[in-house]
């Protein structure tokens, strides 16, 4: 009899989940969000910005007490960290790196009553949602500034790893550059590392020696801006405002505001309206944006950024709207079409105007 009741209850739960019902409201003090970080909070970049978002969320919801574990490898260790959070009463887990994806799925299956949110992934479940930001939109805006500011029409780009995320950023940046300055080219140097200030600096110097008079970057430290400042070359940072490393030469930086997501999710969960889904927010919602402009950025560049931003925010145009050609001049996105999210997530070709190879 009892068994039957249990089965019935289980079936009921399954049906409810399958139908994608919202989770029940959880009081703020019971949520205890647990954050799994890939890097150290002090990386000054990716994890640093997530943690800033976490703090922002705590400020907005005074009852919520969150905790985090930093430098968690993208392996079975991450599962262990999630299990520990749940044992300590966490009702929601934020996993903030792509490589946690399968471990999030595993944990979610074991704990259907816990809500999971995975940053930058694509596998979802009834209790697993995904979220990411359209950073390429902010990259495009920074490209407009770069195109206006280069004199020699050679822009250097210090890039970490040849993966779709980084390639997408280079492409969006280059589309921005070419819009205002069709003669300019973007030269890419790969570091094959997220984190090596020595190498970042040497790569910056190499680009400057080869003729670049403006540097953009996709790596985790302020070494490239510092090297640019020393050489007297303009620079566009990334992740957060890097003007501290280049006080006179920092033009702007595409930056993250993860607090938007965290406030949104915690708000929904305390109200009981959260449903697992996928959110990819951009300029419109304010998850990505530009750091304050440096003093050398001219008014017309600022104005152009504003009008282009308005165009993207209104939804009438997006960065990867056709026609977009690749390096060899082959049309990759035809006129009248815009790259889908899936296409953007697997981008493995450079747009016209990029000089450099994607190692295979």
């Amino acid at each position: 009899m009892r068994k039957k009741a249990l089965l019935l209850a289980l079936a009921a739960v399954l049906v409810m989940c399958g139908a994608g019902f919202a989770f029940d409201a959880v009081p703020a003090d019971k949520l205890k969000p647990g954050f799994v970080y890939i890097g150290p909070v002090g990386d000054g970049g990716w994890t640093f910005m997530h943690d800033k978002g976490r703090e922002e969320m705590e400020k907005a919801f005074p009852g919520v007490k969150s905790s985090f574990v930093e430098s968690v490898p993208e392996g079975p260790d991450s599962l262990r960290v999630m299990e520990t959070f749940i044992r300590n009463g966490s009702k929601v887990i934020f996993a903030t790196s792509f490589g946690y994806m399968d471990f999030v799925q595993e944990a979610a299956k074991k704990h259907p009553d816990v809500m999971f949110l995975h940053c930058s992934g694509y596998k979802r479940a009834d209790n697993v949602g995904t979220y990411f930001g359209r950073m390429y939109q902010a990259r495009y805006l920074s490209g407009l500034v770069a195109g206006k500011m280069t004199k020699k029409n050679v822009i250097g780009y210090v890039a970490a790893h040849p993966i779709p995320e980084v390639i997408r950023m280079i492409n969006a940046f280059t589309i921005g550059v070419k819009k205002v300055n069709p003669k300019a080219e973007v030269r890419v140097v790969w570091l094959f590392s997220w984190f090596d200030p020595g190498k970042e600096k040497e790569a910056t110097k190499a680009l400057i020696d080869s003729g670049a008079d403006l540097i953009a970057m996709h790596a985790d430290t302020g070494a490239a801006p510092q090297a640019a400042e020393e050489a007297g070359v303009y620079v566009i940072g990334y992740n957060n405002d890097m003007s501290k490393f280049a006080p006179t030469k920092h033009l702007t930086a595409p930056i993250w505001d993860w607090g938007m997501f965290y406030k949104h999710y915690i708000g929904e969960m305390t109200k009981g309206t959260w449903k697992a889904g996928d959110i990819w927010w951009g300029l419109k919602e304010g998850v990505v944006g530009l750091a304050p402009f440096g003093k050398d950025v001219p008014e017309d560049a600022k104005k152009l950024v504003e009008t282009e931003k308005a165009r993207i925010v209104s939804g009438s145009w997006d960065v990867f709207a056709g026609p977009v050609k690749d390096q060899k001049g082959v049309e990759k996105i035809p006129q009248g079409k815009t790259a889908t999210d899936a296409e953007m997530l697997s981008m493995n070709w450079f747009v016209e105007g990029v000089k450099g190879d994607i190692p295979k």
Partner: protein
Amino acid sequence: MEIIIPILAAAVRSGTPILYATLGEILTEKSGISNLGLEGIMLVGAFTGFSVSLSTGSPLIGLAGAFAAGVLMSAIHAFICITLKGNQVVSGLALTMFGTGASSLLGRSYIGVTIPGLAKLPIPVLSDIPYFGPILFNHDPLIYASWVLVGFLCWFLVSTRTGLNLRAAGDNPRAADAMGLSVSRIRYAATLIGGGIVALGGAYMSIAYNKMWAEAMTAGRGWIAVALVIFAIWNPGRAMLGAYLFGGVEAFQLRLQATGTSIPAPLLMMLPYITTILVLFIISVKKGRGLIFGAPASLGIPFFREERD
């Protein structure tokens, strides 16, 4: 020439942190102690050098602080390996983990801070020599100091009595002991001073090369130095060549990319490591012993004074 000069200058620049670490380790290993904690010591050196420079405003005091921190770190290693006769590999690895963790914990509040750091000091007259000037004599003082250190170590190990004693402690501690030398004292001194020199390599990263602190900023250079000691067959002069080769290959591949040449970069980056394996092979065939420079015969073996061999 236009392309080669900046590459060679960059080779010197980016080879220097590895050079310091390698020189420190050569000194330590010649006395018979192997220290695999280089990465950790470098990081603590980088952190201490940065924080002391920041608070005192003097990069020189920062360097002194880094040296002292390196001495302290390797004192732990020396105590475990010489006094307690513990396993040197385990102790060295522990030192790396400790150094990585401690430096990132303490360094948290220094993220995003910059310092003026050590400025370039072009040597008058010499820096005007065509080709050689910009490659060799347009750097910061730490680079010139590393050349002095290379010369000093060669002279010290080959031509001085103390150097001979140090090599004896590393090659045949029993004989050194019979000669009336204190093997422990020699090994302690070599480990502590060697550790201090290694830490200077880390401080070079945070004071001269980059003028900032970032977690784990040495990014594996300590391990490259471990390999480089073998590559150099324990010869400080060859260590310098090797360090510049390692640094040069990196500078070269970055510049190749910047000019748009399509030679696969990962292939080039493998070169120094392949050479190291080759050298390892050659010295294991030739045994590599009995040389003034060369693998110390008792490397990594604790010396028990009271026991027979």
